[in-house]
């Protein structure tokens, strides 16, 4: 299986390089310079669209600020080459550096604000473009009339001036596509796509979301900066009004969506299509009518291929695959390999200690000074009426929220200093009461991504191999290639479980995994949970299904109104009057 994947990856890379090699021969054919200039423009847009897609397509942070970074590169080259007589090729690294610095500075601020996603990110980046443009226009960088580069010598690469741009654009396009391809197939790419589908969950399963977004943004900006530097010399006259406008980001978004933003080659396909269509329709005598035809083609393509050109093709392929008879559903294995390990429970102190935890939401005190100890190897039941603070406790331990006061120590380490992905790395995994799978990942990919980033910290290949075991364990192997939308509730709940287990946690927080399941499904789940514990994991089990609580837990803690009201053996605790009161009201006490 993985050998197959590797082979297809190698084939992809070979295809890219072969196409690059073939295109390198074009200028030697002696075509009129027009063709090289046209192809340069295709390369130019391929670089801009593909680099945009590395952040925006992969993570879903649609940037409308690509013009700012492209423009930063343009003006860096223009200023250095025309005013300071720096040789052109030396200005390109500077162009990249300036764009990267701008991008990282913007990202460092914006990516810290949780609410700035979707259209707000688009707006912030668009506004940033206009701010940068205004500053450039009003300072000596431009000064108003624009910058001429007509005096800058064009380095000679290839037979003519046009082939210089052809080779520079082509080389940069090749580098950009290879980068997009490599990221797409790497662990980094898996993390970026996880951010796209559900950033909070991505962080909780161990993806360092902030760092990943900054890295993707930096690469995206740097490539756009170099493209800007080359383009400055190509157009040889740079104005702020044309550079820092909405045209660049709009065109780039258009190309990428047209090609398909979830594919490494999508933006390149879209860029080639749009550039060629625009040329084909507007170059002749009927430029205006041609433009209208271009608009109409665009509309038709989006209406009938909403996932982009490549999305349309891949759906056709998927459908053909799906029409084959489905693989037989694997029965649940009786046991999973691995020896019972309960000796640690007695040997060491508590695994996790929470002291004085407090958390309020807009005045509602969800946790009001909670002390809980979790011992190695136990199954701790966490009970309480709705709204008593059980889920909040899990959200604090997994790092989804930070406590207002109190501390949590996991194996002696203070979790307060860690971000959620660090906690996941440390060996804590959780499930969500309402399953939150990554919607665009298949079942297998959902499990594999957890194995890549959690405590297991596997390479992408190893994680993909390893995921099979958890699919078998939870009985999902028959649905491995399905999308989460195609699963029923019971399967989605088990997917949550498989994802939590794939990260090889030492502590698993199960948030109502049984709610909504039928009695026989509950029996299956109880069996699974027992096996998980027998393999050495410690479990916190939040549940209302008393039958399962009785069957599974070693010890329970009962919460009410954010406080611990009872603790101990199940049968003892459930008989206590204060617990009965909390559950059933005073009349029955």
């Amino acid at each position, binding site marked *: 299986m993985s050998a197959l994947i590797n082979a297809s990856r190698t084939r992809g890379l070979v295809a890219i390089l072969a196409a690059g090699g073939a295109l390198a021969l074009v200028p030697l054919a002696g075509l009129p310079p027009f063709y090289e200039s046209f192809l340069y423009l295709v390369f130019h847009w391929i670089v801009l669209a593909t680099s945009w897609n590395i952040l925006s397509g992969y993570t879903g942070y649609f940037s409308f600020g690509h013009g700012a970074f492209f423009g930063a590169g343009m003006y860096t080259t223009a200023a250095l080459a025309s005013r300071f007589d720096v040789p052109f090729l030396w200005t390109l690294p500077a162009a990249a550096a300036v764009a990267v610095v701008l991008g990282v500075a913007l990202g460092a601020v914006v990516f810290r604000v949780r609410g700035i996603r979707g259209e707000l990110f688009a707006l912030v980046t668009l506004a940033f473009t206009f701010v940068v443009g205004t500053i450039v226009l009003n300072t000596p960088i431009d000064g108003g009339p624009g910058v001429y580069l007509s005096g800058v010598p064009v380095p000679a690469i290839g037979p003519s001036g046009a082939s210089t741009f052809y080779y520079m654009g082509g080389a940069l396009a090749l580098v950009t596509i290879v980068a997009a391809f490599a990221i797409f197939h790497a662990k980094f790419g898996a993390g970026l796509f996880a951010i796209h589908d559900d950033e909070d969950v991505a962080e909780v399963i161990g993806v360092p979301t902030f760092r990943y977004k900054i890295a993707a943004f930096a690469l995206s900006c740097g490539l756009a900066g170099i493209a800007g530097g080359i383009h400055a010399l190509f157009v040889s006259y740079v104005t702020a009004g044309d550079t820092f406008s909405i045209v660049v980001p709009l065109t780039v978004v258009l190309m990428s969506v047209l090609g398909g933003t979830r594919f490494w080659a999508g933006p390149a396909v879209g860029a080639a299509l749009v550039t060629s269509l625009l040329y084909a329709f507007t170059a002749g005598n009927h430029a205006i009518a041609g433009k209208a035809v271009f608009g*109409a083609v665009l*509309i038709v393509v*989006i*209406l009938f291929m909403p996932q982009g050109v490549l999305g349309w093709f891949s759906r056709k392929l998927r459908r053909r695959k799906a029409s084959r008879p489905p693989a037989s559903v694997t029965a649940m294995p009786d046991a999973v390999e691995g020896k019972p390990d309960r000796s640690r429970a007695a040997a060491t102190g508590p695994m996790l200690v929470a002291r004085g935890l407090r958390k309020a939401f807009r005045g509602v005190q969800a946790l009001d000074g909670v002390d809980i100890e979790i011992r190695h190897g136990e199954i701790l039941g966490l009970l309480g009426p709705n709204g008593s603070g059980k889920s909040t406790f899990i959200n604090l331990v997994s790092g989804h929220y930070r406590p207002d006061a109190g501390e949590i120590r996991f194996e002696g380490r203070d979790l307060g200093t860690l971000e959620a992905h660090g906690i996941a790395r440390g060996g804590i995994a959780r499930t969500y009461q309402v399953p939150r799978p990554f919607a665009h990942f298949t079942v297998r990919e959902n499990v594999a991504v957890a194995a890549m980033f959690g405590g297991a910290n596997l390479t992408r290949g190893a994680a993909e191999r390893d995921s099979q075991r958890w699919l078998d364990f939870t009985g999902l192997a028959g649905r491995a290639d399905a999308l989460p939308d195609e699963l029923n509730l019971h399967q989605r709940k088990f997917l949550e479980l498989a994802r939590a287990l794939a990260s090889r946690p030492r502590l698993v927080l199960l948030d109502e995994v049984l709610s909504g399941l039928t009695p026989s499904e509950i029996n299956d789940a109880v069996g699974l949970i027992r096996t998980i514990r027998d393999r050495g994991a410690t479990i916190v089990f939040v549940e209302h299904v008393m039958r399962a609580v009785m069957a599974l837990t070693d010890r329970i803690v009962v919460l009410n109104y954010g406080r611990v009201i009872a603790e101990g053996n199940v049968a003892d605790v459930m008989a206590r009057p204060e617990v009965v009161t909390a559950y059933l009201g005073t009349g029955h006490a």
Partner: protein
Amino acid sequence: MALPSAALLAQSILSGLFIGALYGLLGLGLSLSWGMLRQINLAHFALAFLGAYLCYQLSAVGGVDPLATLLVIVPCFFVIGVALQWIFARFRIGAFNSLLVTFGLTVIIESLIQLIWTADFRRLNSIYGDATLRVGALYVPMPELLTLLLSLCLSLGIWAALRYTDLGRAMRAAAEDGPIAAAFGVNERALALLLSGVCAALAGVAGVCIALSYTLAPAQIYAWIGVVFAAVMLGGLGSALGPLIAGIIIGVSESVTMAITAPSWAPLVSFSLLIVVLLVRPHQR
């Protein structure tokens, strides 16, 4: 950077108010369709300019009073809006794909305008164009005053309609949660068609205002996008009063900046303001 006189400052605040009212009027339809129909309708700007050119044609060539052209433009544009929503619903267009489809539509409308009216500048000389009121030391140009009044009336009217009428409440419910609203008997599809029609009609009204105050050229379609987007988002998606308030804040801050420094610095203040607002209170849009 000398401080301008009080009269000049007051005059520039006034002109900021006027331009802000136009931002708000352009943003109103955009905000409603974005917030309530989840459509990022770029074609809103193209429709506004189509309206402006129609107003120019009817009034400069046909001799109709520019305001009377609204009687033709509003119903026509309402129909266009309904048709647009019908297509969007039929093909289940999501937010970002709506951006692309409407961009395609923008390009088509731009070429259409260019075919009929050429790329040359057009200027409507109407009876309102030369009229100027004088209040104290301030000059109040008539077309801008009309724009402000129209913008105020329409924003307040739609705000009140959404808030106090059953139809408006149903519309907000459908925008909040379509299936649930449908379960309570709200005809979501019909409301969406109606709302889209209203939004396009609003683009037509904004177009008439543009024709009254500005010189027209096809490429101008793109000049308004950035700042009106800013007003829409600052004002809150789906809000009726938001774009007007945000538009006026942006317009006034721009024109005061122009008076104090140079016109070319204007975007810096408005867009920096926008970034800061978003960073500090991203949920309070």
